[in-house]
């Protein structure tokens, strides 16, 4: 199925079996192996990418459903020597151990910080009409779709808080 989409600012034209997920298209057909396949069922978040600015599980969507879309992967957020504030903070705060979940964590956190600055409430926000603060509780709730089997959660939360502080 012919699909034209923009990935990390570069236009791509793909013609793949309709069964191909966005994740497999990125990893196997475009060589963008930063996005990871953990569970392949939307439970772990290792495959998180941004589509049109929003975080999604790349394993639970077909690439042919994304004709015309703009995809950002971990490779598009920053590169060695040119890290994004979140990438920098994960390094500085030791926000990982094995690193497998990290690209998904960082893509997810990048979009999550935008959600919170756009005024989106979460399950733990007291006032649906108020502005949520970036507390550890809010970060944990909003990042619950990203698992870390090494359990680096305290440092992941700290990295996100530090990165957000630098941005605001």
């Amino acid at each position, binding site marked *: 199925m012919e699909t034209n989409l923009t990935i990390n600012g570069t236009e791509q034209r793909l013609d793949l079996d309709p069964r191909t997920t966005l994740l497999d298209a990125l990893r196997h057909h475009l060589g963008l192996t930063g996005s990871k396949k953990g569970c392949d069922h939307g439970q772990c978040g290792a495959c998180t990418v941004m589509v049109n600015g*929003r975080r*999604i599980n790349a394993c*639970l969507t077909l690439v042919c459903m994304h004709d015309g879309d703009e995809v950002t992967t971990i490779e598009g957020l920053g590169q060695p020597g040119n890290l994004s504030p979140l990438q920098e903070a994960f390094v500085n705060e030791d926000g990982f151990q094995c690193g497998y979940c990290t690209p998904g964590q960082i893509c997810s956190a990048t979009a999550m910080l935008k959600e919170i600055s756009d005024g989106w409430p979460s399950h733990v926000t007291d006032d649906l009409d108020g502005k949520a603060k970036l507390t550890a509780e809010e970060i944990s709730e909003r990042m619950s779709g990203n698992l870390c089997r090494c359990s680096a959660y305290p440092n992941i939360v700290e990295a996100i808080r530090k990165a957000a502080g630098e941005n605001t």
Partner: protein
Amino acid sequence: MRPFGYTRADTSESAARQAASGGTFIAGGTNLLDLMKLEVMAPEALIDINRLDLGAIEETDDGGLRIGALVSNSDLANDARIRKDWPVLSRALLAGASGQLRNKATTGGNLLQRTRCLYFYDRAMPCNKREPGAGCSAKDGFNRILAVLGTSEHCIAAHPSDMAVAMRALGAEVETLKENGSTRRLTLDNLYLLPGDRPDQETVLEPGELITAVVLPAPVDGKQTYRKVRDRASYAFALVSVAGIAKLENGRIARANLAFGGLAPKPWRNAEVEALLTGEAPSEDLFNKAADLLLAEAQGYGANDFKIPLARRTLVSVLNELTQEAQQ
């Protein structure tokens, strides 16, 4: 995944026609693709409806909202009108899934998601919902997450949606388009079927019938809350959930809308329970009588027996919250 045809639909009418001849709609795909990877579902053709003009939330003439079937769970939860006047719906949506899934999952798809019964997902085990007549492995199996109301000897699956529970409490209706171009409106009660002897038939929707919108009536006066009890604090399905709306007048309950998740094969609502509460002064005794009535026919299957007392406590707690705060 088994091979399938793939078509991008341009209009709702053409999508309905294509689906009527063997196609399956795909919108967010977060549940369907999960099931297709496991070959629990193996549609011959996918009709991609993401390009249809069903993504708006519009105000209706009578003060309600028409929510397009393609509105994402995130956009619905964050809509300023929903947050202000239908907060139980916003709360229910925010209690469900993860940020990533809410960004893809749609209003129509959320209603039609399938049960998370372990045996429905496990093709090595008999399941009447997956294969009618095969038998139910859950009745004597790991049924901790399954239903205690509305079940049958053939199926004890629970409906997994949080959103639908809030919509049931709000009296929402579904608008559909059929293959022949006709439309109809269904209450959520009428949309869903109980398992009976055909647990594979979950809704009254006909082949090709497309959910185009969910219509919320005008805002309901009263305090609203959504209470979800689950095995972990986030990103888990409900063991028991209660969507509640209550209003006190002169120290008596003037209105009580109550819908329940995690307990039944569909979002559950019991008019007799609401009638019992209406006109009465709130008290622990009254709330326990409401729970008696709600759970009179509840049946546990071993590992899910705990849901019956848990539902009682959750209901009593929610009623306390709704009536105490409304008095302030």
